[in-house]
């Protein structure tokens, strides 16, 4: 580990909070005021909210002490943790009563793909390379349950985002795709995706939800107040834009399942 935060970072006068929304970032920008105000009031300090759409920059910013806490995807947290011992996952979003979420593999209704094994010879759309639910989890599902390997048995295409995955399947550019279940459901609900054209062929097991991560170099008391601020978050107006019911404590080892999956898929994360 090479955590090298400057001395004055342990008790900053302003808490820098970064969000990497794996869905509608514009909504998050519009609605983030509530979260910001809540944190500022609870912690009794200035809060700066930063929203980005790029995993890499957020990881690098966290490692270099440019942000204090951040909301990461499970895989990006694993990537971060590998290079930064002082990154601590402490809270995960509770949805439907559990701090876990699922991914789905979808397929076009008229493609004849009924189950994972049918994907053989087809094109599968994934979101971003570093995305957990729009890449890693569905890929693992197709690999373990469908016994299909990318490149050998089917072709993969990265299309950038969850929404784009669903769209690519709907308009037939890909026969199947993988994305986060909550996002898929909201797309169907909004009518962006026509349920008669796209169907879910497999749901994943539950995986630990997106974690809030803090820098362990922060002042111990401050760390504790931050944790409590999330655990005690009940305010509907704050939670609603975040599409959650609250935040539950979580630990680093909860993400071992992601690490195993990464190894299983043969992604080499053992840099340096």
């Amino acid at each position, binding site marked *: 580990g*090479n955590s*090298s935060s*400057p001395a004055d970072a342990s008790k900053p006068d302003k808490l820098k909070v970064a969000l990497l929304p794996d869905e509608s970032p514009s909504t998050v920008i519009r609605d983030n005021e509530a979260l910001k105000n809540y944190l500022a009031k609870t912690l009794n300090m200035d809060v700066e909210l930063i929203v980005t759409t790029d*995993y*890499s920059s957020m*990881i*690098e910013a966290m490692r*270099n*002490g*440019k942000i204090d806490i951040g909301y990461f995807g499970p895989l990006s947290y694993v*990537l971060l943790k590998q*290079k930064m011992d002082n990154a601590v996952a402490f809270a995960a979003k509770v949805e439907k009563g559990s701090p876990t979420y699922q991914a789905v593999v979808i397929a076009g209704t008229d493609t004849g793909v009924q189950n994972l094994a049918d994907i053989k010879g087809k*094109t599968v*759309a994934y979101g*971003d*390379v*570093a995305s957990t639910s729009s890449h890693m989890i569905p890929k693992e599902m197709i690999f373990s349950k469908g016994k299909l390997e990318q490149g050998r048995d089917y072709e993969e*295409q*990265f*299309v*950038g985002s969850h929404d*784009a995955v669903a*769209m*690519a399947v709907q*308009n037939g*550019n*890909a026969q199947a795709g993988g994305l986060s279940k909550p996002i898929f459901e909201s797309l169907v609900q909004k009518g962006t995706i026509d349920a008669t054209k796209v169907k879910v062929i497999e749901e994943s097991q539950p995986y630990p939800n997106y974690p809030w991560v803090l820098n362990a170099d922060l002042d111990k008391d401050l760390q504790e107040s931050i944790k409590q601020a999330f655990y005690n978050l009940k305010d509907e107006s704050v939670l609603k834009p975040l599409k959650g019911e609250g935040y539950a404590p979580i630990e680093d080892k909860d993400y071992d399942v992601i690490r195993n999956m990464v190894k299983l898929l043969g*992604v*080499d*994360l053992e*840099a*340096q």
Partner: protein
Amino acid sequence: MSQVNQEATLLIKSSSSKRKFWSNWGVILGSGLVLIVGSLLYTVIVSWEALTSGNVLQSFLRIVGEMLPPDFTVIATLGEPILETLAMSVMATLIAVAIAFPLGFLAAETTTIHPSVQYGIKGLFNALRTIPELVLAIIFVASVGFGILPGILALGLHSVGMLGKFYAEAIDKVDKGLIEAVESCGGSRFHVIAFSVIPQILSHSIDFSLYRWEYNFRASTVVGMIGAGGIGFQLIASLRIMQYQEVLAILLAVFIMVQLVDAFGNTIRSKLIS
């Protein structure tokens, strides 16, 4: 020698009257100044903290250090992506040149057929530049599916905007005397273009077009993100999973390509001059 003579500095006078000079340039320079000072102030205000926080250089060196040494094992897997990118960039540039070169003449004051056509085509160029490659690529992926084809179309169309603008501006800078040379013989507008304008803009146009080829090669990073393939996708993928040593190795591969295009350009340039 202490007394400085303003006339002899590089400001170019458009008339002998000082007043007119200033009212001409005053607006331009004034608005430029406002823009620059305003931007500077804004930047300093919002970035003061970042600029003064101590560990800028240290962080910079660390991330650069992590790229070293480049991991050349990745090169072995780059064969097809490089070929793909090469084909994509060549085709995109070809399409762009084929569309932009003729249109450029219509967009240049010197050679256009009517001012309304001139402004219309300039507007088209501006519109094509406005739409990012990424957006064009998404549209074309939706239309023709994955692969290098949507990449070619996206890069090609976007390039029309830049090349057309540059061609037109070069045309408007040709020596009017040499246009007269062809006109004086009774040459048609097309003859003027073929025998006077094109020989004069050829060298610049080749430079622009080669630059755009190189640009399109590099821009595959953008369209690579949404499934248009090529070396750009490899770069983004390595970046995403923080394989910085791979990133550097891929960048070095791209650099060699850029150097080659540059050398190609130099060869043509020296042949044209000699």
